[in-house]
């Protein structure tokens, strides 16, 4: 089982919690798993079965876009959701 770290603007969708557990076998199935377990959260970060363009997803600190879809989430990992914001 992995853990999702939820950013402050989205915590109201998961009862105010900072982290929530998630059962997903791999990265590919993560959006659907979020949809099944936390529909209010999914409504804001998942579009058409995939993460939306305005959310950045990290798995143990790695940008999910650089990881293969079969990346396992069975062992405990930290999935971080952050707004796609930058500008240095």
């Amino acid at each position, binding site marked *: 089982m992995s853990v999702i770290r939820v950013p402050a603007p989205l915590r109201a969708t998961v009862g105010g919690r900072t982290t929530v557990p998630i059962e997903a076998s791999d990265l590919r199935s993560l959006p659907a798993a979020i949809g099944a377990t936390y529909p209010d959260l999914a409504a804001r970060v998942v579009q058409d079965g995939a993460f939306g363009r*305005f959310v950045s997803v*990290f798995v143990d600190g790695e940008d999910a876009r650089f990881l293969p879809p079969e990346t396992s989430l069975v062992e405990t990992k930290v999935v971080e959701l952050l707004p*796609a*914001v*930058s*500008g*240095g």
Partner: protein
Amino acid sequence: MTTKIFAAEQSIERRRSPLTGFKCRACGVLQPADDRYVCAECFGPIEPAYDLASLDATALRFEIENGPRSLWRYAPLLPVAEPKSHYPVGWTPLLTAPRLGALLGVDRLYLKDDTHNPTLSFKDRPVAVALARALELGLDTIACASTGNLAGAVAAAAARNGLRAFVFVPENTEPGKIASAAAYGAHVVRVRGTYDQVNRLCGRLADEHGWGFVNFTLRPYYAEGSKTLLFECAEQLGWTLPHHVVVPVGSGALLTRTATAVSQLREVGLVNGEHCHIHAAQPAGCAPVSDAALDGWRDVRPVRTPDTIAKSLAIGSPSDGDRSVEVVRDSRGSAGSVSDAEIVAAVHDLATTEGVFVEPAGGVVVATARALAERGVFHTGETVVLYLTGNGYKQEPGAFDLRAVIAPDAEEFASTYAEVLR
């Protein structure tokens, strides 16, 4: 003399902003302009919305032209009122560049020389607007993730206003930029990793500390400061839009807000219907936006490990990347992706023909202009403006008190900086 100038600026009546709220770029919902920094409905990016219809063009032009010689002359088009004390940020020179123009084959070439800002880069502009909001909110600490220039701008603004500053930079940031931020007394946090990894760390820290992260929690205000380059160019050209503007692209905020500025000037009637082509300039070692534009306007693909001497543009995952591609396409602009060798040559050409010494990002812009000219993008009689956003002078760090480099890890940050976080 300086004291008198500041006294005069402070005596100017503070003007109200026509801000009506924040509008989400994704779902379009208008929402209150409170302390939110993403859309409460869909997590999308939010941007200020204005009641521009209430502005009279003649009165607005008079007000601007009689305003302070800083970006605050455009306060009626910004989301926050002019603060009582501030740097004279902005109102930088728009230089004619006949010698460089002859070299590039451009007959009406202008340089928007934003190296004249207080910390020698255009980042003083977005920071000025973000800082004004931080002061309104009564924050005591401001912070940022930075490729270097922003760090100095945040550090200086914090010092001038008695605030604490944390600036987070990749460990390979140019020494001169680290030096300037350290000189202003900021806590310069050097992080092992790329800018995008620094950015992730800051996204996490923005949640955990009540600081004003200028490019996170204050971003709706921060990004608006970038509009003022185009406002100034139009005013300095006699309230006429340039036919072409070549913009360096890191996150894409400057490019997208250039388009916003064009749109707003048209909406309030300060310029006529001239078309303004907006061109993106990126180094080949980190060109997610230019590559997408030049490859058939496809979606942006992030660059995992940027590799370029133009470190201030080394943002592999630009938050305004897809929107930048749309802006370039919709303005019938183009893009350049230039090599390090071309960047170095362009910095040299600019310095030796016009006496303007820029950081590599400026070389990216000049080299892109050269490429666009060779492609026949510019036509005889058209005005071409190059944004020069950073000075080349930042020096070695010397003996400033820098702490150990940390991993992009919140716990390590907390332990390394435990004593200053108390």
